[in-house]
C-alpha cells in the first residue's frame, strides 16, 4: 500500500514520495510546487486522525522515551534527513526501487546506525536495570 501510494504520486504528478523532502521544502520559499505537498500532508493527517479514532491500538506509543530524548532524536532526524537528502520513504522505498546507488548507500547506513543505536541502548538498559 505504501508502494501503491508512492506510485500514484509518481504516475499522477511525477513526484517522489519522500516525506522528509516534502516536509523540508515547506521551510523554504513557497511556490506552485508547495500545493501538492500540502495536499499530500493533508491526506496523511486526515487519514491518521480518522484511523486513530477507529483503531487507537495501531498508534500505540508504548516505549516512547521522555521529552528530552524525543526532542533530541527529532533534531537528529531533521538534520540527518536534510543533510542526507532523504529518509526511509525517499531513500528506503523510492530510491531503492529506482536502483539509485546513493539511496542504497544511505539506506544501508541508516539501518546500520539505527540497529547499532538500539543494540547499545538495550545493553545500557540491561546494565542499568
Amino acid at each position, binding site marked *: 500500500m*505504501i508502494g501503491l*501510494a508512492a506510485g500514484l504520486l509518481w504516475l499522477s504528478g511525477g513526484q517522489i514520495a519522500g516525506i522528509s523532502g516534502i516536509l523540508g521544502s515547506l521551510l523554504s520559499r513557497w511556490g506552485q510546487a508547495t500545493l*501538492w*505537498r500540502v495536499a499530500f500532508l493533508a491526506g496523511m493527517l486526515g487519514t491518521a486522525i480518522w484511523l486513530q479514532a477507529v483503531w487507537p491500538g*495501531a498508534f500505540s506509543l508504548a516505549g516512547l522515551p521522555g521529552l528530552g530524548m524525543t*526532542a533530541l532524536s527529532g533534531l537528529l532526524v531533521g538534520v540527518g534527513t536534510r543533510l*542526507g537528502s532523504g*529518509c526511509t520513504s525517499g531513500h528506503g522505498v523510492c530510491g531503492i526501487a529506482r536502483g539509485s546507488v546513493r539511496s542504497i548507500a544511505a539506506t544501508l547506513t541508516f539501518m546500520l546506525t539505527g540497529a547499532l543505536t538500539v543494540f547499545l541502548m538495550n545493553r545500557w538498559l540491561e546494565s542499568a536495570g
Partner: protein
Amino acid sequence: MKRLAWAFLAGALFVAGLVLGGMTQPRKVRGFLDVTGRWDASLAFVMLGAVGVYALLYRRGLRRAEPWCGGPFARATQHGIDLPLLLGAALFGVGWGLVGLCPGPAVAALATGNGRVLAFVVAMLLGMWLVDRGRSRAASSGEQRQ
C-alpha cells in the same frame, strides 16, 4: 486540481500503509532494528513489498512522456556517494533508533495528540531548517570569495 486530489489520495493511502504495517508503533520499529536481540522481521516485508510495488509503477512512469496530470517527472538531482549523504544518513539512523520514529510515521503519530510526538516533529523541522540555513550561508560565503 486533479493533481492535488491525487496527492491527497496518495497521502491518505501512504498513512494507511504505514498504520497497517505497524510503522506507527515505535516499539515495533525498534524491534525491527533490534537485529541482534529479539528481531521483529515483519517490517522488512512491509518495506520489500513497498519497494516491489513502487518499482513496477516507477517503470510504468518511465514509459510515459509525462505524468497523468502533465508536467515533468522529477529527476534525481544529485549523483554519486558523498560525505553529507553518509553523515546525514548515519545521524538519521541514530535518531530513528533512539525513539523508533522516522518522518512519515511521526507525522501520522501527530494524530495521537501526544506532546512528545509534537516535540519530535518540531525538533525535526528545526533540524531541517538549521541545515538549510547552514547551506545557504556556506553558498553565500563561497560567492563572496570568488
